């Protein structure tokens, strides 16, 4: 038998951290590695492996690599690092793994060490990083930044914006390309009362990218909640949930944002304990919000964090639990549904959105091949790994178009942006929307803003 792994990390060959701190991989509870029995059953569901065929790009391979680095058996060569960086963090492997491997803990340990030691990957320019971490998380700044684009689109020159992208430096283009058609922004009031008998009191998180790119989905969420008998509290001072930072291994920054939200919602709701749920509609943010308890452990805000995490619910999850009110109006639509990773894999929310959409008269849902396969958006992945992101985006577009549907619905802002970008090339009028927009139409009888007549 060759080199049985040991629990004590060995001296590292060539990868002693420059800051003289802990060796690589030492930040992880070694038992997480031991959960993996190396059966390989996860391979077929990992998008990066399916694309490259290289086991270094598979869950089993990445776990093996990072464990070997932690054991001092392997060097974290630039190649090895590349494979770990290529991970989408889509968590399809957790769904596939019968052994219950908590892959997110393993990849997070890698990310944490990378932000600790290594300079940011060369593919992310300083400008992109600035936009990612400094602009996106603040709704107002983001909205302002998008203002020129919005104006151009309003006067029908949206195409020019996209064309103009070709003139931008390459590094900026990938950011610019993800800008969808922007809709007029609605400034939601801080309180919206229940319509009909009052059944619940909820807080509503607007998200940062969500609110900038898809304000109509936030409006729709509020409307649907009202129509389901909910008093909706929407604190103005709320901020980014911290998901972008958490995914990048920036735990401290993420925790600060989480803390702000705890305080803001606690105040606006008159105590977190006093509400039935805190709703979000961005599938990618949900898992991070539900994890506030963990994120804030040991700080001043532990109790609030854990309470917030418990109250956090995805909109579809909440409605299904509450027992939805049947919508009054029909919406004739041939649609398909894409499972956002953050919903399907991280929160195990699969049936609820479908169940909600099934209530809409006239809407038919066509099955989507590889519906649980990541579309390549994956947070900031389209900026850090543009090539793989593109490949997966095209793969998703092809699958969506093959259904023959006229719309694709998905509960996460990142997926929507990605699908708009990739489907638009083939079918400019295809409707890409949050399922809650279809629901709002069915409750109010108003045609959704983005749904064109000739779609």
């Amino acid at each position, binding site marked *: 038998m*060759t080199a049985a792994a040991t629990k004590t990390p060995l001296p590292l060959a060539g990868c002693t951290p420059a800051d003289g701190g802990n060796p690589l991989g030492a930040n992880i509870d070694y038992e997480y590695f031991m959960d993996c029995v190396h059966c390989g059953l996860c391979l*077929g569901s990992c998008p990066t492996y399916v694309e490259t065929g290289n086991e270094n790009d598979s869950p089993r391979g990445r776990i*093996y690599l990072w464990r070997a680095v932690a054991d001092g058996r392997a060097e974290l060569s630039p190649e090895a690092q590349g494979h770990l960086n290529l991970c989408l963090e889509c968590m399809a492997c957790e769904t596939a793994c*019968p052994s219950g*491997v908590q892959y997110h803990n393993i990849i997070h340990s890698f990310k944490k060490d990378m932000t600790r030691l290594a300079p940011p990957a060369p593919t992310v320019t300083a400008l992109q990083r600035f936009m990612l971490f400094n602009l996106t998380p603040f709704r107002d700044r983001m909205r302002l930044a998008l203002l020129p684009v919005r104006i151009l689109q309003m006067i029908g020159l949206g195409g020019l914006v996209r064309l103009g992208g070709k003139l931008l430096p390459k590094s900026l283009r990938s950011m610019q390309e993800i800008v969808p058609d922007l809709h007029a922004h609605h400034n939601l009031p801080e309180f919206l009362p229940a319509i009909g008998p009052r059944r619940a009191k909820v807080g509503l998180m607007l998200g940062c990218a969500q609110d900038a790119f898809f304000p109509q989905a936030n409006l729709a969420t509020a409307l649907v909640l009202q129509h389901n008998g909910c008093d909706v509290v929407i604190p103005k001072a709320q901020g980014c949930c911290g998901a972008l930072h958490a995914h990048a291994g920036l735990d401290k920054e993420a925790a600060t944002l989480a803390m702000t939200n705890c305080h803001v919602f606690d105040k606006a709701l008159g105590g977190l304990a006093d509400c039935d749920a805190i709703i979000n509609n961005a599938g990618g943010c949900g898992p991070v919000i539900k994890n506030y308890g963990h994120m804030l452990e040991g700080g001043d805000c532990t109790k609030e964090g854990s309470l917030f995490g418990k109250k956090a619910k995805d909109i579809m999850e909440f409605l299904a639990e509450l027992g939805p009110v049947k919508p009054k109006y029909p919406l004739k639509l041939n649609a398909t549904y894409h499972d956002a990773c953050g919903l399907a894999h991280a929160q195990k929310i699969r049936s609820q959105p479908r169940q909600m959409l099934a209530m809409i008269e006239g809407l038919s849902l066509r099955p989507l091949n590889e519906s649980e396969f990541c579309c390549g958006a994956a947070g900031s992945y389209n900026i850090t790994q543009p090539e793989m992101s593109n490949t997966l985006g095209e793969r998703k577009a092809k699958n969506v178009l093959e259904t023959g549907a006229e719309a694709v619905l998905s509960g996460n802002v990142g997926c929507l942006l990605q699908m708009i970008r990739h489907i638009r090339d083939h079918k400019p009028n295809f409707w890409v929307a949050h399922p809650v927009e279809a629901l709002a139409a069915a409750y109010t009888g108003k045609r959704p803003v983005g749904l064109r007549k000739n779609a």
Partner: protein
Amino acid sequence: MDAKILDQLRAVVGPAGMITNDSELLVYECDGFTIERNKPEVVVFPNDTAQVSRIVKICHQAKVPFLPRGAGTSLAGGCLPIGGGVVISLARMKRIWEVDSRNRFAVVDPGLVNVWLTNQIKSSGWHFAPDPSSQGACTIGGNVATNSGGPHTLKYGVTVNHILGVEMVLPDGEIVMLGGPVEDSPGYDLTGVTVGSEGTFGVACRSWVRITRNPHGYRTLLGVFETVDDATEAISGIIAAGIVPAALELLDSLILRAVEEAFGFGFPLDAGAVLIMEVDGIEAGLDEEASRIEEIAKKARAREIRRADTEAQRLLLWKCRKQAFGAVGRLAPSYCTQDGVVPRTRLPEMLRTIRSISEKYQIKIANVFHAGDGNLHPILLFDERDSEQVKKVLDASTEILDACLSMGGSVTGEHGIGVEKISFMPKLFSPADLGMFARLRKAFNPDGLCSPGKMLPTAGACNEAGHVHTDGAHAPNKPGRRAAL
């Protein structure tokens, strides 16, 4: 490895089609069997048969060992690169070339994942029948190489029954077509010989596979028993009544705990064993058959019988069964899955033997098996960091497999020989049989460069039966195991 050889390989697959970096190669040092490991010197990713042929020619000329690899789900160390050399990964060859439902076959690449073929054709009413539990990941090339079985092979037969022809790259790089879309082609049945050769006859590229009509209906029953003995009595009863179930699978209490934790099906955790019993075919008659099975199970003191009422329930039940191996990862850090066969009537006796071996070595053993054909999979739980335990597991495994042999069975039902079972070959076959095997391999693989050290107790050029070593199974460094070069 000689830089010249690397350059030659690079000229075939391009820089993006190979890996030579030490850290990256590490990932290819083993497969689903992790007890023995060895790093290859290079991994190449060909895109088509012509590239495979050119790669093999380079290895052949340079006298470098090489080894095909599919998804690496082998549980017998089939993908262990003995002597380093070149691993030829088929993972990028995954096209479906043709589906001809009128003539009931499909032409597929070796790296195509088993279940993808079924996914592609199921809406038109077809499927690929071999359904190993690893079907969500393993490749059709790997199935061909190991002659895979699965729960439903009780009725539908193992892989070899579903392969019409194979396009093979022989160990000297020549491309040959064995068999083909036409049934019963004249001449020697080289397809039959190749299926199950575990990569020692060359690299299987495209395969002509039979596709099977989806049955009109299923009835899937779950029988809950107090003891394993009662469950096996039911199995014998079902077979004796002349019923050919599509599948008949037994899970014992330890395994139940693991799958219940993984999937929350609602298995009774205090049961001694459960049986998954499925019949399929045309609708008419299915209910009657299911009722007969129910009756037989009740006579064998089944505590409870449940039916999977919906397709979703049925699929969940099968998921639990098929992912059972992986789910035991929840019970222990490492496991070793054994693969023995005994005559069905001796299943209760075999299970008692396993229990006493488990007690003797103080190693927990969970059992899940294809009860219909007496193929059992005892899963030995251990911690790979404890070398004492590793040794115990290997000893206990040998004892279990010896018991299978002494009951008139075999040491592998479907996982293959690989490197893991090699030392059992002399117990399974006479020197004359082994000599015949060796000569057959020599006809395909005269230099022994293709998958050295696999299948037969000796490897490489000295593949004469006289060189057989009969050391214990746990002698990884003895000749006949990894040092077989």
